[in-house]
């Protein structure tokens, strides 16, 4: 069968998927969530204390460098956005031992969850000959309806909001909801009484499945681009900071979705049941996440190094064979430099140091699993008697 017919079929099925999304209300639901997030972003204000204009020679208002302990303490008492505000600053940890080695760069291990990296504080203090800037602005959400959050640095809050939107909304809850909402598209399409007439058309059989699969991917890609682009625009307009690195999330979130939608497609072809696709794809995602997290934890915690060889092998094999949702999440956070603002979910530098984590290989193997799942689905579809 000629390629133009297949391409033509795929184009029509992509169009049909958008119609299906509109008719089922999913299009409006997802667009509504995007608009809501954009509206919230538009209410964000970043305020900084008034500063005298500099003419070039004046020193900025700062604590003197001759009092590094005080300088670092002041800097450290300024919690990062979303970090120390609720937990107190450096809970249970005294700064004094860390600041004793002021002349030499302090070497500090993993920071407590939600606290500022001590090393960074010391570096800031040492790097600024004039002392530590007293930049203590606020971020206001919903026009101040939410109590203002103090912040360090004037461009970090925008990135912090972007990290929340990308990792929790787009790549987290949004992705799972999209998997659930689009899970019914393929089973409905593959009902024998619906697909029989299409199968009697002079187009390649595989192009029908490919068209519908790609239709859902294009639709999800469209919604992701709308969400990322819309919230980026709203944030930028509201705050005046135009930070394009946020757009790197789009391909990553799309790849993450594509891998798990392959599994949903396999379920759709084999069971033709919307319920099985909804539940199956979510359970599969959770199982893969647990496998992914468990494997990294086993690598990082010394006490877990003495696992039985059989269990360790199973964990390692499962990690490489199945898709890795946590790795997608970690790569996304790395892209947005989330480690400068938030505690790490997993100590990825240590994993990389151990040679246990290669982001590119992780993505490629996840994609490989998706391709295998989709190939099985395609084989089943091509050989099924309708």
């Amino acid at each position, binding site marked *: *069968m*000629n390629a*133009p*017919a297949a*391409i*033509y*079929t795929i*184009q*029509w099925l992509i*169009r*049909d998927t958008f*119609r*299906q999304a*509109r*008719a*089922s209300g999913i299009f409006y639901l997802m667009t509504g969530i995007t608009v809501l997030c954009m509206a919230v972003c538009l209410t964000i204000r970043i305020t900084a204390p008034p500063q005298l204009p500099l003419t070039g020679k004046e020193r900025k208002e700062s604590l003197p460098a001759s009092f590094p302990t005080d300088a670092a303490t002041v800097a450290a008492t300024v919690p990062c956005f979303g970090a120390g505000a609720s937990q107190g600053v450096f809970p249970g940890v005294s700064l004094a031992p860390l600041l004793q080695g002021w002349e030499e760069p302090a070497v500090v291990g993993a920071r407590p969850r939600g606290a500022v990296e001590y090393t960074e504080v010391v570096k800031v203090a040492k790097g600024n000959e004039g002392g530590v800037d007293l930049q203590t602005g606020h971020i206001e959400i919903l026009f101040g309806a939410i109590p203002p959050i103090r912040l360090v640095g004037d461009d970090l809050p925008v990135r912090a909001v972007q990290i929340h939107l990308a990792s929790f909304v787009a790549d987290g809850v949004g992705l799972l909801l999209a998997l659930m909402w689009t899970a019914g598209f393929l089973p409905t399409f593959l*009902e024998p*009484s*619906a697909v*029989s*007439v*299409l*199968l*009697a*058309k*002079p*187009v*390649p*059989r595989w192009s029908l499945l490919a068209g519908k699969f790609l239709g859902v991917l294009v639709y999800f890609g469209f919604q992701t681009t709308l969400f990322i682009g819309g919230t980026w625009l709203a944030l930028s307009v509201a705050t005046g900071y135009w930070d394009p690195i946020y757009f790197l999330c789009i391909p990553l979130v799309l790849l993450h979705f594509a891998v798990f939608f392959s599994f949903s497609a396999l379920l759709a072809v084999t069971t033709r049941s919307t319920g099985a696709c909804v539940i199956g794809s979510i359970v599969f995602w959770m199982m893969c996440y647990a496998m992914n997290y468990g494997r990294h934890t086993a690598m990082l915690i010394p006490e877990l190094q003495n696992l039985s060889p059989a269990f360790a092998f199973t964990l390692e094999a499962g990690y490489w064979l199945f898709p890795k949702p946590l790795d997608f999440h970690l790569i996304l956070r790395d892209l947005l430099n989330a480690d400068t603002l938030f505690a790490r979910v997993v100590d990825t530098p240590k994993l990389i140091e151990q040679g246990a984590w290669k982001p590119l290989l992780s993505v490629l193997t996840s994609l490989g699993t998706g391709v295998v799942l989709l190939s099985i689905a395609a084989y089943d579809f091509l050989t099924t*008697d*309708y």
Partner: protein
Amino acid sequence: MAVTTQTAPARSGPVAIPNATTPLVEFVNVSKTYKDFWFKSRCVQAVRDVSFRIEPGEVFGLLGPNRAGKTTLVKLLLSLCQPSAGTATRFGRPLADRSTLARIGYVHENHAFPRYLTAVALLEYYGALSLVTYETLRTRIPQLLKRVGLDDRGNEPIARFSKGMLQRLGIAQALVNEPQLLVMDEPTEGLDLNGRHLLRDVVDEVRARKGSVLLVSHVLTEVAAVCDRVGVVVNSRLVYTGSMAALLKSASPSPRSLEEALNDLYRRGNG
């Protein structure tokens, strides 16, 4: 209704009948067994050693009781499933050549069209997948809707359509590519008297342009009214092929009606 401006790709080769004597459809000793991957005991032989042909310009009817194997023959013809044994051709080419499907229209017994489409959008969609060009569709769709009595409902979502209206739309869908072979599987389901008249007119129109029709039904009167020849399928086997008149003569002891003749065939087939 917005329509696409895409152009359908050229069909992959001519699918016209090579010459007037080549049958549109030819089945030779075709069998089909539906297999169960897990349980071999659940395998079902739906069709056994079936041979028949449909000539150009002929209206061929398939009769038989429920679960006799009629729909499986249609599915084999349309490549919805593959034969387990035997050989079959469509327009002189093997069934694996899907390009010949461009000359076939199919009326399904129980349509499940996407309910979010309007009648016009549905005909565009199915017409496009039949590789009909946009220009042709633009002129043909209004004519077809008028032909099946849905011209005033073209822009209405088909979710609001009754079963009879959906069946009429199904007939329009099957005619969107002006088929040389029209395959209709239990097309009278849900149709009122006017709908049945429409069906007969459609069959006459196809015949008038030298096309053929395969009509599958268990309603004897419908088949007898339009078909030139019939095949009777009983218990997965084709037990009779010929004209209605010959069917009446073939039964024994001399029956008084076609229905009796058919019942006689059913009994013999099951025996």
